């Protein structure tokens, strides 16, 4: 199969890669660029574990083709912390035990970060509905909601 050469920006760095037309952005991130923080849970857009932002929009990377992201800017979980400093959401997830096995956590963090950028003071209901596209099987969601509420408060006060 023919391969395409694509140049994009990932977490602020210019990156280029080769991909087959059937490869999704998720496949490219994990298999070509070895950025394995973004996870595959279903490859059909139903679980959110592969969430990234594409030109600032929250998307499932399993439903974006690698070949179509030329010139675009992608943010993944690997870009969330700044060196040693965790993003408040990352810290609050730890503090509130909003993760157990952790496989859904990168997707949830990327999705939560986008929520707080658009809505710095979401209600519990707004959080639950925004995160409905991110499945978690371990926590029952409660501590995740608590962590997002707490992170939002901290970010509003700083």
């Amino acid at each position, binding site marked *: 199969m*023919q391969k395409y050469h694509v140049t994009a920006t990932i977490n602020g760095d210019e990156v280029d890669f080769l991909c087959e037309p*059937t490869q999704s952005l998720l496949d490219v991130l994990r298999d070509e660029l070895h950025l394995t923080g973004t996870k595959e849970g279903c490859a059909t857009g139903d679980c*959110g574990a592969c*969430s990234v932002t594409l030109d600032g*929009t929250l*998307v*499932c990377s399993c439903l974006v083709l690698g070949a*179509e992201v030329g010139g675009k800017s992608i943010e993944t979980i690997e870009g969330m912390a700044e060196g040693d400093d965790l993003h408040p959401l990352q810290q609050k997830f730890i503090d509130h035990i909003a993760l157990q096995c952790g496989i859904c956590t990168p997707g949830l963090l990327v*999705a939560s970060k986008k929520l707080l950028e658009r809505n710095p003071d979401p209600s519990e209901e707004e959080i639950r509905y925004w995160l409905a*596209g991110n499945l978690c099987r371990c926590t029952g969601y409660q501590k995740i909601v608590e962590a997002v509420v707490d992170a939002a408060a901290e970010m509003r006060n700083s």
Partner: protein
Amino acid sequence: MNDLRFEFADSLESAARLIAAEPGEVRVLAGGTDVLVQLHADMIEPDLIVDIKRIPELRAVSEGDDGWRVGAAVSGLELMDNAKFCAAWPGVMDGVRLIGSVQIRGRASIGGNVCNASPAADSVPPMIAAGAIATVFGPDGPREVAVQDIGIGPGKTSLKKGEIVVSFFLPKRPARSGDAYQRFTPRTEMDIAVVGVGVNLTLHDTGVCSTARVAVGAVAERALLVDEAADALIGSSIDEAALEQLVSAVRSACRPIDDKRGTKEFRIKVAGVLAERVARIAYRRAQEAGGAG
């Protein structure tokens, strides 16, 4: 699929050229939330994928004197962030807001929703109820087709090879108009509609319904425009008797199947329940709407 190729089209003409030049199977790519699922499940094996998101007409949203024009590849999120459009067509947006998840809505488009032709697609009943007209571009040039005539069966459209939907036109409504859409799903989010109903109506100054359109999804091989249901509302003040007739007309029009998402009897029953609930909301919105839609 050994030779699958991917191309960007940056104009309608180049899209048409690319598609016409391909002897094999072509898939047009907008948000990709249906195409990629089908590609990875080996449900489709195209020889060419054409990305149409760079074509300006497909991405534009504009309000004119005679109505709104929405590009076929505009994402759900872009529409949700367009406050004026949301105020003008709350029922269409009820449907758009229910497509998938936040992640899906970041990419999915009404054009994709219509052309994928799932009978359960959430934007389709309210778009039919809105009287939306699609502009289609193909080898024979542009033409117009009502949204209810695009989907003809599960996964099948009336479009000819090489035709793509460019945009949708929603004609301006008189004052005191309102639309609404609801669907039934087992979970609160993420599910495909088991049944969905869209109602669009306009009231006289007296409060009596002057025009109405009622469309029902997931109860037939395609979404249905149910004239008898509209007739039940027209000339009434959306009172109990009219609603009873509406419910009965909607139920009679249903010809659903039993499948993994719902049984025939459940779909028919709930179609009626939703029709009544949606008509009430559309009525309330029409009463509250001062300006034109």
